[in-house]
């Protein structure tokens, strides 16, 4: 017996008798061939009482510098937004935390209705009519959208803006290699997708085109123009897929209103913790015509035998448990609990709040960019007038790694090292700074001060070293 099992010696005897065996070992011996039985204990540390496990995990946590411990301007895909307390409490309710996927709708109306509400919220945000109940996370959502496009039109090439998150491009490449589609990357010009290269790359073999809004460098793309260009290349156009940052959609034009066919993205910023990268959720919304090719669970409204309104998992003939090798995706377990957090967060934020929050980020981000680019040795990576919402790219005239270390010594994480992330030569010296509503003006001012000193000191010591 561990603390989670309950078979007393008395229970055991009754149970063995009922089964008709002499020992538990006998049950295994009768079924598992001797050569593959493990004849020794696993080489793992001994079990521990709850308090010792707590202390151990706490000790590990203390060796991480979290956004609770430093002033954190990291973003690049996940953001330190404030998660309201009611999200935690709802996620921790046994009724949401512990059930399986709702296979028995009569006793799963809570979860199913949450999915329905979540789908509605995502549809509203993206201005696209259909949304699923979540996929894993951002980059794999992009790849899944690619797979759907390929199922849709069977063409052989994806055209991808370099403005996509490097993890999204990498994931898309991994997936696409599997189903056999080539991936072509389109460079940026002045921080946004180069419109000429974009148009040139698109032809009748292109299954889908991908861009990000805002893009990886924080810049707002002209989504409508990119979509229109993709659709204007003659013939049946490719599927236009946008990876969008959902929390900017209070102020940025919605993908559905910009000609986008499929909008996917990372849902972490909607009420999910950072958690060192997961679990969060990916969202997936599309035009009506893709409904029966979408991956993942979809909840739909219906009625019960007495006429009561109710919800079920629907369109399951898309799914692996029904269609097996012919399924539109292999996804099974997705991110229901994180999507719950998402819809609760969006309800909390509300129709006005998402605009207000967007405008606050916009203002603070511009303030931060303005002040930072006024520093010696710091400029905008692309253009200082490029529209941005909550993130922007700088170029430092000093070693980024060293500057970041100097800032860390002052309790500040000034942002992500762009080159380390993208590996692109043109990103050398790049620093990607994210400003959430948790970063106040005072915080930004402190960043300006510390980064200014760090860059200056680093340049000096480089000069001395040189």
């Amino acid at each position, binding site marked *: 017996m561990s603390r989670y*099992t309950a078979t007393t010696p008395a229970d*055991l005897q009754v149970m063995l008798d*009922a089964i008709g065996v002499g020992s*538990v070992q006998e*049950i*295994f011996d009768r079924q598992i061939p001797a050569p593959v039985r*493990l004849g020794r*204990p696993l080489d*793992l540390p001994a*079990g*521990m009482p709850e308090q010792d496990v707590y202390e151990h*995990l706490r000790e590990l946590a203390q*060796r991480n*510098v979290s956004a609770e411990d430093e002033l954190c301007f990291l973003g690049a*895909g996940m953001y330190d937004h404030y998660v309201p307390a009611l999200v935690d409490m*709802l996620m921790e309710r046994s009724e*949401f935390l*512990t059930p399986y996927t709702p296979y028995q709708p*009569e006793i799963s109306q*809570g*979860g199913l209705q949450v999915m*329905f509400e979540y789908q509605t*919220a995502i549809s*509203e*945000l993206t201005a696209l009519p259909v949304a699923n*109940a*979540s996929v894993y996370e951002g980059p*794999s959502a992009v790849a899944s959208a690619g*797979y759907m496009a390929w199922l849709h039109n069977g063409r052989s090439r994806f055209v991808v803006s370099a403005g996509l998150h490097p993890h*999204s491009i990498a994931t898309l490449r*991994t997936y696409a290699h599997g*189903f056999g589609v080539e991936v072509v990357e389109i460079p940026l010009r002045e921080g946004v997708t180069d419109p000429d290269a974009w148009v040139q790359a698109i032809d009748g073999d292109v299954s889908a085109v991908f861009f990000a809004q805002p893009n990886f460098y924080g810049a707002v793309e002209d989504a409508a123009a990119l979509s229109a260009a993709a659709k204007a290349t003659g013939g049946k156009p490719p599927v236009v897929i946008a990876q969008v940052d959902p929390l900017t959609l*209070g102020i940025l*034009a919605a993908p559905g*209103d910009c000609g986008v066919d499929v909008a996917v993205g990372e849902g972490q910023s909607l009420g999910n913790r950072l958690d*060192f990268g997961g679990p969060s959720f990916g969202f997936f919304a599309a035009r009506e015509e893709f409904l029966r090719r979408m991956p993942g669970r979809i909840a*739909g409204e*219906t009625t*019960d035998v007495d*006429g009561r309104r*109710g919800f079920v998992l629907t369109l399951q003939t898309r799914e692996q*448990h029904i*269609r097996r090798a012919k399924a539109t995706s*292999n*996804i099974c*377990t997705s*991110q229901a*609990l*994180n999507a*719950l957090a998402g819809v609760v967060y969006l*309800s909390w934020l*509300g*129709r006005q*709040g998402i*605009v207000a929050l967007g405008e606050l980020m916009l*203002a603070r981000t*511009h303030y931060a960019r303005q002040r930072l680019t006024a520093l010696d040795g710091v400029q905008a990576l692309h253009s200082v007038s490029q529209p941005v919402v909550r993130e922007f790219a700088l170029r430092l005239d000093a070693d980024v790694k060293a500057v970041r270390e100097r800032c*860390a010594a002052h309790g500040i994480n000034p942002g992500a090292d762009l080159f380390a*992330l993208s590996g692109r030569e043109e990103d050398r010296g790049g620093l990607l700074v994210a400003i959430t*509503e948790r970063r106040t003006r005072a915080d930004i001012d402190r960043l300006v001060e510390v980064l200014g000193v760090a860059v200056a000191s680093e340049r000096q010591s480089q000069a001395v070293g040189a």
Partner: protein
Amino acid sequence: MSAAVKTPPSGSQLNETPLQREPAVTIFEHGAPGRRAFQCPALDVPAFDPDELLPSHLRRATPPALPEISEPEIVRHYVRLSKRNFDLDSGFYPLGSCTMKHNPRLHERVAALPGHARLHPLQDPARAQGALELMWNLERALAEISGLPHVSLQPSAGSHGELAGVLLTRAYHEDRGEMRHKVLTPDTSHGTNPATVTMAGLQVVALATNPDGGIDLEDLRAKADSDVACLMLTNPNTLGLFDPNIVEIAEIVHGVGATLYYDGANLNAVMGLSRPGDMGFDIVHFNLHKSFTQPHGGGGPGSGPIAVSERIAPYLPVPVIVRDEEGNFVLDHDRFKSIGRLRGFQGNYGCFVRSYAYIRSLGAEGLKDASETAVLNANYLLARLQQEGVAEYLPLAYGELCLHEFVLSGGPMKRELGLKTLDLAKRLLDHGFHPPTVYFPLLVEEALMVEPTETETRETLDAFAAAIAAILREAAEDPEIARHAPYTTPVRRLDEVAAAKHPVIRQAS
């Protein structure tokens, strides 16, 4: 959890339970224009001209129609909604293949520590050593449990692990200059297996099941050729049976140069007792949300780490955690044979925290106890259900004993009592139990797949067996009762056909 005969006329308001009386109202139907829960932090930087910062053609014209609602309304809505869910903390949940074991709350506590929960995924590894050590330790533990030396924690769930696995197999063959096209998998396999094969650009070849519930060796021998990339196997399989020919199977598959993939959804049967690596498997995925207590969350999050043999290791997804000379953990992105990334960042770290806490709580002995007790519970429940009054209607589909789960056939019940497995499942709802998995695996007629897990008491198993027996007795008298069940759930049987025919998948705005 006692039985109750309840056969009110369908639709009669007289017999509605309180939850049935509560009409389903969505969050979008609550609230009123102008209400709000969010109070925006003050604008503390100079005000700006929006058009200057964001040209109007890039701006949204009308805000998304999100709810407008106060905080108390949100709380009440979702708390009430939660009560329309059945959950593991409230009742027995013997859903086969899903391993609905107790989710210790300690795990939620430690995962919520800010050092874990507010750690940014791009934090410099030097300042995330606790997290990387945790991941390293978890990798080592999973390697030991599976008997395979190299682990990637990256995949987000079982099916994602499968995709990783098939892509790894491809990469392995391609690296040897081979393009193999076929993947073998038995007809008992889970739907994610064939679906994954397709996604990875390969073709599924189904293997027959022999009368003992294992792989038909003849069929395997016939189909195993040099175009086979891989055999995907669940062992114990979805019948709860360990393939007695596993050693021979591995020989055959390896003999044609193919790899063996182990679907680890059923690992809860064999922890500390038998290891996929020792059985000859090259690649294994784990479902941390099954064997290792990550709560299912109503459909995720999960986590599907993979463990692989030496020959597969070069192709593992990036990044890989390595320990440098000074004992520090770093992320290695530079692995030229890697299949690449499967997702952003480092995987579902929050799940790693929970599963690691579980492994450290139980240790070697406790994990073995978990599997032993899971198997004991399954066999005990099976024995209880093979007693008089049940076995006639619900015989065991294959074998005599089982490992952690078993599959009954509802065929006789259907023929003799006129009760389908679906009806039995729905009637169980009135008894306060979550039904077993139904109609899977496909090769068993009217299948009922029962996995009690190790964290249930004998009393609960007895009560469940008694409920099944009571339903069968009731059906012998009046099968109509079960055919219209459930009666006491928040809603009763739902029209799934209508839902699929005219899909309403969002609230009209």
